[in-house]
């Protein structure tokens, strides 16, 4: 494309095999006073 460069493809994963809940709760990482969900790893991808 001439005017638009896609840096990253869609990442909001709503497919049927998601939502397993094995990922870390965000407050258990480093925040404790905010809700910082988007930087949490997907446990399935981490495997």
């Amino acid at each position, binding site marked *: *494309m*001439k*005017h*638009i*460069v*896609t*840096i*990253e*493809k*869609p*990442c*909001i*994963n*709503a*497919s*049927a*095999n*998601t*939502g*397993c*809940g*094995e*990922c*870390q*709760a*965000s*407050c*258990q*990482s*480093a*925040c*404790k*006073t*905010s*809700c*910082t*969900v*988007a*930087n*949490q*790893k*997907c*446990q399935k*991808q981490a495997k």
Partner: protein
Amino acid sequence: MIHAFQFHDYYLILDVESGALHSVDEAAFAVIQAWEKGWDVYGLPYPERQIREIVQEAEELKNTGRLAAEEPTPPAGESGETVIKSMCLHVAHDCNLRCRYCFADTGEFHGPRGLMPPEVARKALDFLIAHSGHRKHLEVDLFGGEPLMNMETVRAAVSYGRELEKRFDKQINFTITTNGLGLTDEIIDYLNEQMHNIVLSLDGRPEVQDAMRPTANGKGSYDLCLQNMKKLVERRGDKEYYIRGTFTRKNLDFTQDVKHLRNLGFQQLSLEPVVLPDDSPYAILEEDVTRVLEEYDTLADYVFQSRQKPETWLNFFHFMVDLSGGPCLKKRIAGCGAGVEYVAVTPEGDIYPCHQFVGHTEMKMGSVIAGELNEAIRSQFQGCTLLDKEECRACWAKYFCSGGCAANAYIYNGDIHKPYARTCTFLRKRTELALGIYALEHME
């Protein structure tokens, strides 16, 4: 929904519902914003042929789900069961520091000072296992006050947790949040072996740390804490840790604190705005917001530049974003899980929706001693997802914060459904900067 913004000299467009990120030229930046709103794009001050090309490209992206995507529907999930998977264990409602901004009221959480007996920790872990269903990965954060003031219970909890892992085929990731003052060589080695992640609370420059985090006898804590933390991190290898600080209205030039921490050799950094009512001298007030946003710009430039070279590389927690993976939609909608999947347990064994609710007795939701859980409070939190908050649903940053912190909403607005606007402003700014840094790092 799209969000168009600039970072450095780049024009960026986030497609909110799909999470795709695009870099565009100046004309496309204007045309796509008008096109998405259904406005007449041909009135814009660009050659008609150029506008037509841009619209054609935008339509092509739309047809492949990368621009102006529809709001997705979350799947039901694999199991459908509601479990508790994370627990914040308040092993000590006491502290050897007297931090001036402490939301835990310098360790007491608005109640008596006290240490959690080992037996209560074991009951808490039993409770966690009993409510964890089929979930394999569980998390226990050893928290306080200052958890190192109760190493007997820390060790008892970890040792019992390891037994439970074998007995129930679970994996318990223990983490600890400490001010570092009580670290000895033996404790450092123990924590480095047992803890999945260690959060070390340090605010930055010596004058900031000493002013905000004095010891119980009123002395500065910088030298003592830093010495111990450096030793811990040096011996930690590649295991996770964070140096986590707080900034207040007394250090709105907080980039200097991040720089200071990086210059000390720490690479994993987090610095968060203080959470305090407006009548506190340290609270970040409405009149400080512009200054904070400018400082985040300064910080983003510093972080971006630092990340270019291995010798200065760092990770700043609030600028971390994973656009190639990251959490699934269901997680982004459910948020942190407070009061549903995540609970805090006091030294007495009382259960609260999260560590920040401790002491708000109207939010007490049970006891690990009695094995009780108040499902009415739990269902309030279950009904407080991103989809339940209209204001959040219309916000471009919704999938990054998941509707914000329920405790902040409750403490400032008296309602877990009403996000605290000031933290939303900061979150949106940090998200733009995080996306900007990501874009620059991932461009050709």
